[in-house]
C-alpha cells in the first residue's frame, strides 16, 4: 500500500495561525501600543504620508458620493471608514508591485497615483476602466467578487517564473471570502509559493448580509491555515498597522517565502452604494460607534501628540484636499461624449470584418439621426 505523505511539515500549523486579538500599533486614542506582535511602527515620514493620503482620499470619497447625487456618477461605492486599509496597504507597495483592486477600492487606486478622473471613469460610465494598468501597475477595478484573486496569483507566479522582483496585492472583502475563487487563489498561491498578499477588508457587511451569516469561521484570517498560508489579524482602522502588516508581507513574498493572508477589521460607514438603504439592515447606533473609531482622527491624534502635525500643516492639507475636490468637481461636471465607434475598437486586437460592418451601420444610423435633427424647421 502506498504511504500518503503530506507536504508542508516544515511550517508547524500554529505558526500559520493569526493572533487571537487584532494587531495594533496605534490605539483608538492615538497612543502607541496595543498588541502588535512582530509589527513595528513606521517612521514619522511614513506616518505623515499615511495621514495626508487618508485626508485626500476621504475628501475624494465624499466628493464622489456628492457627484452621484448630481447625476455625474452612475454609482459610487464609498470606502469611507476603510481609509486606513485603502491607504496603508497601497503605500506599503513598492513601485514594481501590482495592485488588484475591487469596485470599492477607488481610494486605493487614487493613492497609487491614478488621477482622480481616470479612477472614476468606470463609475462615471464612459468606459469600464479609465487608466492604463501598466502605467500604475493597477489592474482594472474588479466588479465580480473574488475573481481578481486568481489574476493576482497568476501575475505573481509569472513574476516568479520570470525572476522579476514584483509582488501582487489583491484587495477583497469579507463577502468575497465565501466565493470559490478566493479558495482556489489561496490554494494556488500556496502551492506555487506565489508572491501575493491577500488583504481582506472585513467591513462587517456584504451589501446587507452581516459576517455572522457569511461564515462560521472564528476569523477570516483563520482560513489561511487550511491552505498553508500564514495569516494576520489586524486592526484595519490603524493605518500604521495596515502599512506595517502589508509591508512585512510584501517583504516576505519578495524574499520567496510565498503568500500571506491579512484580515483587517474595519467598517463601511456608508451604505453599499448611493443606491442602497443601509437602515434596512443595520442600526444607526452601530454606525455611530464606528464613527467614533475614525481612522483619520486616530492617526491625527497620534501625530499631534508627537508634534508631527500642527494646525498650520493640517490647514495646508485641508486646502490641498479642497483643491482636489474642486478640480474633480469641475472635471466631472463637464459632459462626456464617448465616441460610439470605439465600442468596436477593442473587442479584438483588430476589429473583425463583421464588427467593421456593424460599426459602419452604426455610423450611418448616427449620420441619419444628425441630419434629421439639424433639418431646418419649415
Amino acid at each position, binding site marked *: 500500500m502506498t504511504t500518503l505523505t503530506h507536504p508542508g511539515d516544515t511550517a508547524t500549523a500554529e505558526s500559520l495561525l493569526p493572533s487571537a486579538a487584532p494587531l495594533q500599533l496605534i490605539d483608538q486614542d492615538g497612543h502607541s501600543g496595543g498588541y502588535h506582535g512582530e509589527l513595528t511602527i513606521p517612521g514619522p515620514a511614513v506616518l505623515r504620508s499615511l495621514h495626508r493620503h487618508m485626508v485626500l482620499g476621504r475628501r475624494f470619497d465624499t466628493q464622489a458620493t456628492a457627484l452621484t447625487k448630481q447625476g455625474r456618477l452612475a454609482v459610487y461605492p464609498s470606502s469611507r471608514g476603510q481609509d486606513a486599509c485603502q491607504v496603508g496597504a497601497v503605500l506599503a507597495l513598492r513601485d514594481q508591485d501590482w495592485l488588484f483592486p475591487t469596485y470599492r477600492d477607488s481610494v486605493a487606486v487614487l493613492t497609487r497615483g491614478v488621477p482622480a478622473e481616470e479612477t472614476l471613469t468606470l463609475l462615471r460610465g464612459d468606459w469600464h476602466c479609465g487608466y492604463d494598468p501598466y502605467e500604475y501597475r493597477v489592474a482594472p477595478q474588479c466588479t465580480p467578487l473574488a475573481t481578481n484573486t*486568481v489574476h493576482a*496569483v*497568476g*501575475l505573481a*507566479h509569472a513574476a516568479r517564473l520570470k525572476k522579476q522582483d514584483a509582488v501582487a496585492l489583491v484587495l477583497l472583502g469579507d463577502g468575497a471570502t465565501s466565493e*470559490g475563487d478566493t479558495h482556489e487563489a489561496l*490554494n*494556488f498561491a500556496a502551492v506555487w509559493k506565489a508572491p501575493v498578499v491577500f488583504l481582506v477588508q472585513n467591513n462587517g457587511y456584504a451589501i446587507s448580509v452581516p459576517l455572522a451569516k457569511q461564515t462560521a469561521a472564528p476569523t477570516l484570517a483563520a482560513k489561511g491555515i487550511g491552505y498553508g498560508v500564514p495569516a494576520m489579524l489586524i486592526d484595519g482602522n490603524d493605518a500604521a498597522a495596515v502599512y506595517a502588516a502589508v509591508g512585512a508581507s510584501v517583504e516576505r513574498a519578495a524574499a520567496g517565502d510565498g503568500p500571506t493572508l491579512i484580515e483587517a477589521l474595519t467598517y463601511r460607514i456608508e451604505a453599499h452604494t448611493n443606491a442602497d438603504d443601509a437602515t434596512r439592515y443595520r442600526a444607526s447606533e452601530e454606525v455611530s460607534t464606528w464613527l467614533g473609531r475614525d481612522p483619520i482622527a486616530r492617526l491625527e491624534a497620534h501625530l499631534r501628540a508627537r508634534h508631527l502635525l500642527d494646525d498650520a500643516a493640517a490647514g495646508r492639507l485641508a486646502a490641498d484636499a479642497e483643491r482636489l475636490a474642486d478640480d474633480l468637481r469641475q472635471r466631472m461636471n463637464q459632459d462626456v461624449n464617448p465616441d460610439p465607434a470605439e465600442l468596436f475598437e477593442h*473587442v*479584438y486586437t483588430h476589429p473583425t470584418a463583421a464588427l467593421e460592418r456593424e460599426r459602419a451601420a452604426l455610423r450611418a444610423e448616427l449620420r441619419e439621426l444628425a441630419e434629421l435633427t439639424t433639418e431646418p424647421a419649415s
Partner: protein
Amino acid sequence: MTVASAPAVVPPRVRPPTPVSMAAALNRALADSLAADERVVVFGEDVGTLGGVFRVTDGLAARFGEDRVFDTPLAESAIVGSAIGMAMNGLVPVVEMQFDAFAYPAFEQITSHLAKIHNRTRGKVVLPVVIRIPFGGGIGGVEHHSDSSEAYYTHTPGLRVVAPGTPADAYRLLRQAIECPDPVIFLEPKRRYWSKETAVLTPDGPPIDRAVVRRPGTDVTLIAYGGMVATALEAAEAAVEEDWDVEVIDLRSLSPFDDVTLTESVRRTGRAVIVHEAPGFAGYGAEVAARLTEQCFHYLQAPILRVTGLDIPYPPPHLERFHLPNTDRILDAIARLQWEEDDA
C-alpha cells in the same frame, strides 16, 4: 550572449509527410511553440508528469522543464484566472481543461474576464491565452465527458473559437492560436484524437479565421467543424451514388465566422446543410443558417437545414449513437433540399 556563442542559423528541419494522429500533431504544435517562444507556458490538470489524460502534452514537461509545463491543483477557475494574470505579465499561457463539461467552473473567468479585459482596458491589456478543450462525443464517455459546448463560447464577444477537423489542421490552428494576440478557445474533437493523416505539419496555410473547402462540389454546401468534418466527408462520398455533388466546408473558425468563403459557396450551390453534434435548439447551426439566409436568400433553392444532436442532455454511452449526426441523417437532409419542382 556573446557573438561567438550565438547558435548558427540553421534552416528549420523539414519533416517528410508521415502518418500522424491529431493528438500527436497537437503535441508537436505545443512542443514547437514552446521551442519557438520562451513566453509560452503550458499548464493544467495532469498535463505535466502524466502528459494529459489524452497524452497531448506527453513528454513536454521532461523536455521543457517544470517552469514551463506544469501540473496545477484541481481548480479550473484558477487555471484560467491565473492564466489571465500570467498573460498580463507577458507570458503566453496555453491551458488545458480536461474535458468539455469540466471547463464550466472556469466559465466566469472566461466570459467575464478573459473575453473582456482587452476591451475593458481600451486595448491596453492584451491576453494571448489559449484554452484547449477536448470536446464532443463519440468516444463512449460517461456523463460530463462528451459535451459540445461551443455555443457558450461563440456567444461571447472577445473570444476566438476554433475547432480543427484534421491532424494537419490541428497542428496549424494550434500554432496560429498560440501566436494570436486574442484569447482563443481551442476545441479538440476528442473522437478524432487517434485518426491519422499523412501530412506535413506546418503553421503555414489558411489563416486562423478562414474556413476551407475540404471537398469541392456543385450541388450543395455541407458545413461542418471539428469531429463532424470527417462525417461530412463520408456523407459527401456516399452522396455520389445519389448523383449529388456535395461541397464540404470545414469551418475551422467558429468565431469569427468566415462569411466570405461561406457565402461564395452557398451562392454557387444554392443549397446548404450544417452539421454539428450539439443540440440544435439555439445551437451554433442556427446562427450559420440565419446568417447565410440573410446573405444568400435570392440564391437559395431550398431552406438551409441543420443536422444536429437531439435536444437532450448528452446520452449515456449505449445510447449516444441515437444522438449523434451520422451519414444517413446527413443524406436524408440533403434529400429534403427540394430537388424536384413538386418538392417545394
